[in-house]
């Protein structure tokens, strides 16, 4: 995350100059998404207010356009794994690999529901460790939409990106002769004009909400920029700045 030092200094000197609107936006994000992410000039942290943040409205500062992301409403997941099947079918994922999984947590002591399901996939990180590690830029972040993609013909199969990814989102695909990973179905759906990912389309419980975080009218924008429900990301301390958000309800 690169924050222009000038902006930072300016803001630390004149916190009162920060517009009320910005402050609210920031507080929302800072408070509810403890330690959020984001590339470009967005910054936001747990203890929020006195920390630095850039000028301008947050929506304008999302670094990609569209800035694709997914919000996972985790408590709605019933563990049917149709999303996984949809992904496998859409993207020809072999039996030995996965692009998305639904993990299962058991809470024996819990009252009522005793199991919880947690879908995981590539976080299309804004600061992707896989992209940094790849020696030949076979994996790269699309400059337009921020999806972390593969250029199969370049992949030398060193697998350092597998080790670098904090989310276990990559595997070596023999058939492709390259590493494979979730691309938000860019190749098989988005680039062909569809607006959803295969996993989202297959989910009967509307758990996975996919969309453009830079568009204030989008569902994902509204789900992320609200105060009522907590929104979190996985493994935020690795500083990969993920674009998969989790919430409840």
């Amino acid at each position, binding site marked *: 995350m690169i924050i222009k030092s000038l902006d930072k200094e300016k803001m630390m000197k004149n916190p009162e100059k920060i517009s009320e609107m910005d402050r609210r936006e920031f507080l929302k994000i800072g408070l509810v998404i403890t330690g959020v992410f984001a590339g470009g000039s967005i910054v936001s942290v747990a203890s929020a207010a006195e920390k630095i943040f850039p000028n301008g409205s947050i929506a304008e500062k999302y670094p990609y356009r569209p800035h694709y992301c997914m919000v996972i409403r985790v408590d709605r997941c019933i563990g049917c794994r149709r999303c996984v099947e949809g992904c496998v079918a859409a993207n020809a994922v072999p039996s*030995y*690999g996965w692009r998305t*999984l639904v*993990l*299962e*947590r*058991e809470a024996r002591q819990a009252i009522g529901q005793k199991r919880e399901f*947690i879908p*995981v996939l590539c976080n299309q990180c804004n600061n992707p*460790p896989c992209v*940094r*590690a*790849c*020696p*030949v*830029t*076979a994996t790269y972040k699309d400059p337009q939409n921020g999806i972390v993609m593969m250029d199969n*013909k*370049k*992949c*030398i*199969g*060193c*697998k*350092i990106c*597998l*080790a*670098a*990814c*904090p*989310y*276990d989102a*990559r*595997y*070596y695909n*023999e058939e492709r*002769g*390259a590493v494979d990973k979730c691309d938000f179905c860019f190749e098989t759906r988005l680039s062909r004009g569809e607006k959803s990912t295969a996993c989202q389309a297959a989910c009967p419980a509307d758990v996975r909400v996919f969309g453009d975080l830079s568009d204030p009218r989008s569902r994902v924008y509204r789900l992320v920029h609200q105060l009522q429900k907590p929104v979190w990301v*996985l*493994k935020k301390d*690795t*500083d*990969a700045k993920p674009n998969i958000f989790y919430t409840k309800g």
Partner: protein
Amino acid sequence: MGCPENSSWTGCLKDAGRRVFSGGPVYLFFLGLFAALLVAGVAAGIHSVYIVGSRHAYGTTREIPLAMLIATYTFFVITSTGLCLVSSIGHIFGVERFMPIAKRAVLLSVITIMSGFLVIGLELENPLRLAVYLFCSPNFTSNIWWMGVLYAFEVVLLILEFIFLLLDKHKASVAAGLLGILFGIAAISNLGGVFAMLNGREFWYGPYLPIFFIASALLMGCAAVIFFTVLACRVHREGLDGRMAESLAAIGKLAGLMLAVIMFFTIWRMVALAVGGTHELLVRDALVSGPFAFNFWALEVGLGMILPFALILWSAGKRIGPIFLASALVIFSSFFVRLDMVVAGQIVPLYWELGVREYSKLHAYSPTWHEILVVLAGVGLTGAAFLLGEKVFQGFREVEDAGSHFAEVLEDAAQEPPSAEKGKVDGSP
């Protein structure tokens, strides 16, 4: 014994060949053995990557993608850098005692780096793409990219340094050697960075590994010089001469010092892990009392630190026998140090904190025969090339040796066009 009078390439090679074949049954047995290992290992690697697929042949998985072959690669290149550093103490920095070992150490440095390349070449899924895209599509933030570039330079510098040493071109060899040291240290600390810059892997992350690798390299360099020099005496069926014995004793002392350094590194590392995060604690437990306990206590600490240190102390810096044994132990053990370092960094599932059913156990890795054979290919290359090198360069003796004959040939080659050389050879009886 030397080259034919006309000192031509072919004549020299023929002569070297004659020396190899008259090496005696034990020599030839080991040469054949190492060559067979090399061939078997290369065949196993090709079979794994290009025929059945590494997913079936190697023990690596999505969760533990880097394992024995990467560890072996680091083992060889760390040794190579170490040899380069130890050789430089004498012939570059002028420490008299370290001079006699310089040529052999530099040649071994070339051999071990090549062995490392061989092993990683049989590990990568698409090594040919590397040759193209390393240059056409570089990623300057990638440690692996820098690794490729730095080691490519390093191997060229080492070869130049060796040639200049043979030619007794002191200034040129010092220049190549100095650059070799710079590139070697850059390469090895960057190799540490390959692991140490992965923020998602707590056990590797941080400044420890790059520094540790440099210290390890020095230790490995000392151990390899001692080990191979003593073996070379057996190859030539003669005792260590006084000057060489003194040299080895001095290197043995340096090895003792480096062992002490490595021991303290290891102690502090374990202390630091004990106050680290969940992943670090899990790895520490795995090392101290879990699946890695035997490797850690017996192979790393016992055979790799305590016993060799005791042997070096016992040698009183004089007796070569114990120093040799200590070196052999250090080399053997450091293979497991590399292996444990690489594998232990990946045993904790990345979603451990979620407490999910799928990732409630530590990942496990065990090598397959294919992987072990590829490791042996590296060992075979090093062994065979060392044995050949000893005969070809006649033990790097100072006067009237084959090395200097080769030097003459090299000099001639530099002066005359190769076709003229060839004419000479053909005309010779």
